[in-house]
C-alpha cells in the first residue's frame, strides 16, 4: 500500500478544480502525513481550463474535475486501464446574507439579483437553473446574474453585489456562514453534481511499477478511503465513494 | 544711411518706462545683471556679441524667466518681483523669437488666425493697459506689407527660412501690444526684403507709438531704424542713449571699422527738384543729399516746419580732408571744419574728430595722407563728402 522507499524527487502533480481547493488542502495534508516521501504539487484552475491544458499535454498525473463531462472525455481518450471514479457529489445551497433560513418561497418574492454559475460552464449552474425552473410558478421578480464559475457566483453574493445566490455548500462552510443562514436545496430538484477523479495517462504511468505509477495509484486509493471521504463530507460534499 | 525723424516727430505720446533690476543666473554659469530704468520710445536696438545675453534680457522682460531674482516694473506697474509675477500672456508685449516658432501643424493663415481669433477681446490685458483695445493691426495690411499672400495656405513647415521669419513677424505684429520685442527678426532675409521691412517696422512703431526692442547684429539695420541703443556686454546692460555719439560707440564693441561715423543734425532747407538734390542747413553751411529727404523719411507730421531736424549719419571712412576747397570735382559737400583731435585708429590710419559748425563729425584717412598734409589740431580744413554716400535707400 505504501510506495517504494526509494527517494524520488518528482512531485505528484494534481490538477484540482478550484472549488475543491479547501477540501483538497486538507486531504493532501492527511495523505502526506501517511506517505512521508511523497510531495504533491497542486494546480488549481477551473475544470474547463484544466481540461484544455490536459488536452494539450499538461504534465499532470491526476485530474480532480468538478464536473463529469470533462473528466469522462479525458478518460475516454486514453488507455481505459487508467482509473476514474466519483470522489464527491456537490451540494447546492441558497444563500442570502442577512436573511435567516431563506427558502425558495422567499426567493420567488425576492426583488434583487440572484447569482448562479453559468449553467453552460458549471454543473452547479445547471443544478441551480433546474431548481429555479422547477420552482417557478410565475415569472420571478429577481434578476438572474451568471458567474463564470460557482466561485464567481459566490463572489457576487459575498461582495453584496447580488443579494442572493445558489452556491456550493462547500463554499458556505469554508466561508463560515452560520447554520441557519443558508438553505440546503433538496437533492431531488437537480441532477447529482458528480465530481470525477481521473488518472492522466502519461509515460511514467505506463511503466508498470514505476514510482510515479505507485504514487498515483496510492493517491487514488487514498481518495476512496474512509478518512478521505469523511474529510470530503466535512467540507460540504456528499461522499462520492461509499465503499469502506 | 541714418536719416530719420527725431523723437519729437512722434505723435506726442509718451514712451514706456521700463525699470528692471536684479539678476538672472543660468545653470551654464552665465549671469545677467540688470539695472535699468529708462523711458523708451521708437526703436531701441539691442546690440552685443553672440552669447552676451540679448535674448536672455528680452525673455526677462517678456516674462519667460520666472524663477529669478528680478524686479520689473513698467510704467510704474510691478510686473515681476519676489511676490508678483504677471505671466507672459498677460503682459501687453508681443515677441518675435530668434527661432521663428511657428505652430508646425497649422498653415500660415492658421498661424495668423491663432492671434486674430483671440483679439481684440483683450480680456486680462485691459487691466494693464486700457488704450490697447483701440489698436489692432488689420490682418490684410500685415499680410500685404510682409508679402505673405502667396504663402497663406502653405503648411508652416513647408516654408523657406526667410518666409518663416516673415510669418513669425506678421504673427507678432497682429497681437495688440504696448511693447514689441523683436529678436533678430530679419536675420534670414535678403537685403532687399530687409530694406523694405525695416522701414515698415519703424513706421508702425511711430504710427502706433509702440516702442520696439530690436535685437540685431546688422549695423545697417541699427543705423537705419534705431532711435537709441542698448549694449549688452557679457551680461551687463548699458544704455547707449540716442545722441549723436551713438554710432561713435559701436566700433570698440561690435562694428567693423567701416561703420563708425558722426551724426549731423541739420534743418531742412530746400529740395532742388531738377537735380533731385535736397539741401539741408547746418548753421551757415549747406549739406546736399540725393533725393527728396522729406519724401524718403517716412513719417513726418509737419514736414515743412523749419524746426524739423533731420539726422544725417556720415561714416568716417567717407570723409576726406582737403586743405582748400576743390573745384571741378563731383564732391558736392565740402564743409569747413576745425580739427579737434586725432587718434591712432589702426597702425596705418588716423581718425580725426572734427568740429563742423558746433557739431562733431569723424574722418578717417591714411597715416600717410595725414603726415603729407601736415594736419594739426586747431587747424581749419575742408571735409569732403561724396553726396551719394549719404543716399537713403531708394524706394
Amino acid at each position, binding site marked *: 500500500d505504501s510506495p517504494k522507499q526509494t527517494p524520488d524527487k518528482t512531485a505528484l502533480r494534481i490538477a484540482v478544480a478550484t472549488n475543491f481547493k479547501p477540501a483538497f488542502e486538507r486531504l493532501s495534508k492527511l495523505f502526506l502525513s501517511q506517505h512521508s516521501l511523497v510531495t504533491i504539487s497542486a494546480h488549481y484552475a477551473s475544470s*474547463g481550463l484544466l481540461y484544455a491544458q490536459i488536452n494539450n499535454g499538461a504534465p499532470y498525473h491526476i485530474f480532480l474535475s468538478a464536473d463529469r463531462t470533462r473528466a469522462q472525455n479525458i478518460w475516454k481518450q486514453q488507455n481505459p486501464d487508467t482509473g476514474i471514479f466519483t470522489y464527491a457529489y456537490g451540494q447546492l445551497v441558497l444563500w442570502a446574507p442577512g436573511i435567516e433560513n431563506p427558502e425558495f418561497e422567499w426567493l420567488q418574492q425576492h426583488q434583487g439579483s440572484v447569482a448562479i454559475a453559468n449553467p453552460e460552464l458549471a454543473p452547479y449552474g445547471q443544478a441551480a437553473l433546474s431548481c429555479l425552473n422547477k420552482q417557478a410558478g410565475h415569472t420571478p421578480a429577481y434578476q438572474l*446574474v451568471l458567474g463564470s464559475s460557482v466561485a464567481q457566483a459566490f463572489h457576487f453574493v459575498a461582495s453584496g453585489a447580488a443579494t442572493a445566490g445558489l452556491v456550493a455548500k462547500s463554499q458556505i462552510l469554508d466561508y463560515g456562514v452560520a447554520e441557519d443562514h443558508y438553505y440546503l436545496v433538496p437533492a431531488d430538484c437537480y441532477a447529482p453534481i458528480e465530481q470525477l477523479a481521473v488518472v492522466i495517462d502519461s509515460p511514467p504511468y505506463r511503466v508498470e511499477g514505476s514510482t510515479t505509477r505507485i504514487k498515483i495509484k496510492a493517491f487514488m486509493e487514498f481518495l476512496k478511503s474512509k478518512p478521505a471521504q469523511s474529510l470530503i463530507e466535512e467540507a460540504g460534499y456528499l461522499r462520492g465513494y461509499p465503499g469502506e | 544711411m541714418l536719416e530719420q525723424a527725431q523723437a519729437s516727430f512722434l505723435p506726442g505720446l509718451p514712451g514706456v518706462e521700463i525699470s528692471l533690476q536684479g539678476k538672472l543666473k543660468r545653470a551654464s554659469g552665465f549671469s545677467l545683471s540688470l539695472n535699468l530704468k529708462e523711458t523708451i520710445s521708437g526703436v531701441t536696438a539691442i546690440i552685443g556679441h553672440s552669447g552676451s545675453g540679448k535674448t536672455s534680457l528680452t525673455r526677462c522682460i517678456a516674462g519667460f524667466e520666472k524663477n529669478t531674482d528680478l524686479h520689473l516694473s513698467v510704467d510704474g506697474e510691478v510686473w515681476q518681483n519676489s511676490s508678483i509675477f504677471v505671466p507672459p500672456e498677460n503682459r501687453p508685449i508681443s515677441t518675435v523669437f530668434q527661432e521663428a516658432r511657428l505652430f508646425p501643424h497649422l498653415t500660415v493663415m492658421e498661424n495668423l488666425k491663432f492671434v486674430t481669433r483671440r483679439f481684440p477681446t483683450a480680456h486680462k490685458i485691459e487691466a494693464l493697459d486700457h488704450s490697447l483695445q483701440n489698436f489692432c493691426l488689420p490682418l490684410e495690411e500685415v499680410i500685404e506689407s510682409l508679402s505673405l499672400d502667396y504663402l497663406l495656405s502653405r503648411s508652416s513647415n513647408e516654408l523657406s527660412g526667410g518666409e518663416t521669419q516673415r510669418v513669425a513677424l506678421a504673427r507678432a505684429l497682429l497681437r495688440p501690444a504696448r511693447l514689441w520685442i523683436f529678436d533678430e527678426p530679419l536675420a534670414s532675409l535678403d537685403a532687399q526684403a530687409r530694406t523694405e521691412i525695416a522701414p515698415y517696422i519703424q513706421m508702425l512703431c511711430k504710427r502706433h507709438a509702440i516702442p520696439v526692442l530690436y535685437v540685431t547684429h546688422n549695423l545697417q539695420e541699427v543705423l537705419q531704424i534705431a532711435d537709441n541703443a542698448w549694449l549688452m556686454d557679457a551680461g551687463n546692460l548699458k544704455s547707449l542713449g540716442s545722441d549723436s555719439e551713438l554710432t561713435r560707440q559701436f566700433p570698440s564693441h561690435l562694428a567693423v571699422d567701416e561703420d563708425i561715423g558722426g551724426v549731423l543734425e541739420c534743418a531742412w532747407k530746400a529740395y532742388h527738384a531738377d537735380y533731385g538734390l535736397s539741401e539741408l542747413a547746418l548753421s551757415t553751411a549747406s549739406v546736399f543729399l540725393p533725393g527728396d529727404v522729406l519724401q524718403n523719411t517716412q513719417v513726418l507730421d509737419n514736414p515743412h516746419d523749419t524746426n524739423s531736424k533731420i539726422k544725417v549719419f556720415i561714416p568716417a571712412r567717407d570723409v576726406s580732408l582737403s586743405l582748400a576747397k576743390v573745384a571741378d570735382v563731383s564732391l558736392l559737400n565740402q564743409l569747413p571744419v576745425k580739427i579737434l583731435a586725432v587718434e591712432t585708429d589702426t597702425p596705418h590710419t588716423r581718425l580725426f574728430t572734427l568740429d563742423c559748425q558746433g557739431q562733431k563729425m569723424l574722418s578717417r584717412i591714411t597715416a600717410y595722407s595725414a603726415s603729407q598734409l601736415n594736419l594739426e589740431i586747431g587747424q581749419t580744413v575742408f571735409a569732403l563728402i561724396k553726396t551719394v554716400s549719404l543716399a537713403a535707400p531708394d524706394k
Partner: protein
Amino acid sequence: MNSDNYWSELFTATQVTLSLAATSTLLLICVCPFIAWWIARSQSRTRPFFEAIMSLPLVLPPTVIGFYLLISISPGGFIGQPWSALTGNNLAFSFSGLVIGSFIYSLPFVLQPLVISFRNVDEGLLEAAASLGAPPATRFLSLILPMQKRALIAAASLGFAHTLGEFGIVLMIGGNLEGETRVLSIVLFDQVESLRYQDAHSTALFMLALALVMLTLVYRLQGRIKHA
C-alpha cells in the same frame, strides 16, 4: 451548435461590446489628456507617485480588480451606494458599471502614450503661444490638443482595442446579462470553457477581423495626419 442562436448571440454581443468600447474610450479621451498634460508638465515632487498610481490598474489581475470593483459598486459599496441614491439603479451587473470598470482598467493605456507624447512638446511653441496672449488653458486646448491629434488617435485606439478584449473585469462585475453586459470576449470565453471549440474559433476569427479592419482604418487615417 445552434447556428441561428449563435449568430443572434454574436450580433447582440457585438453591439454591447462596441457601445462599451466606444463609451469608455470616449470618456477616457475626454479625461486623459488633462491628466497626461499635468503629469507631463508638472514639476511637483509628487508627480512620479501620482503617475505610478495611474498605472496601477495594470498591475493587478483583471479579475482581482474586478473583485474589488464589485465590492465598491455593489449597492452597499462606496461607489454603488451614492450611485443608487442618485439614480435609483444598481451599478453592479449594469452597463454603466462595465463602463466604470473599463474606464479604470484602460486608463493607463490611454494615459501613458499621451504623457510620452506631451513630454515631447517643444516648450518654445508654448512660449510663443503665451507671447501671443494665450493663457494656459487656451495653450492646451487650442494648441497642444490639435497639434497632438495623432497621439490622441493612437491612444484612443489603444484604449478601444483594449476594451474590446477586456474580460476579467467584465466577467466579474458584469454578470453575463445578454444585451446588457454580455460582451464578445465573454461569449468567446464561454464557448471555450464549454468546449464549443468550433464556435469559439469562429468568434475569435470574427473578433480579430473586426479589430483588424477597425485598427487598419484608424492607423491609415493616422498616417495621413502629417504633423506631430
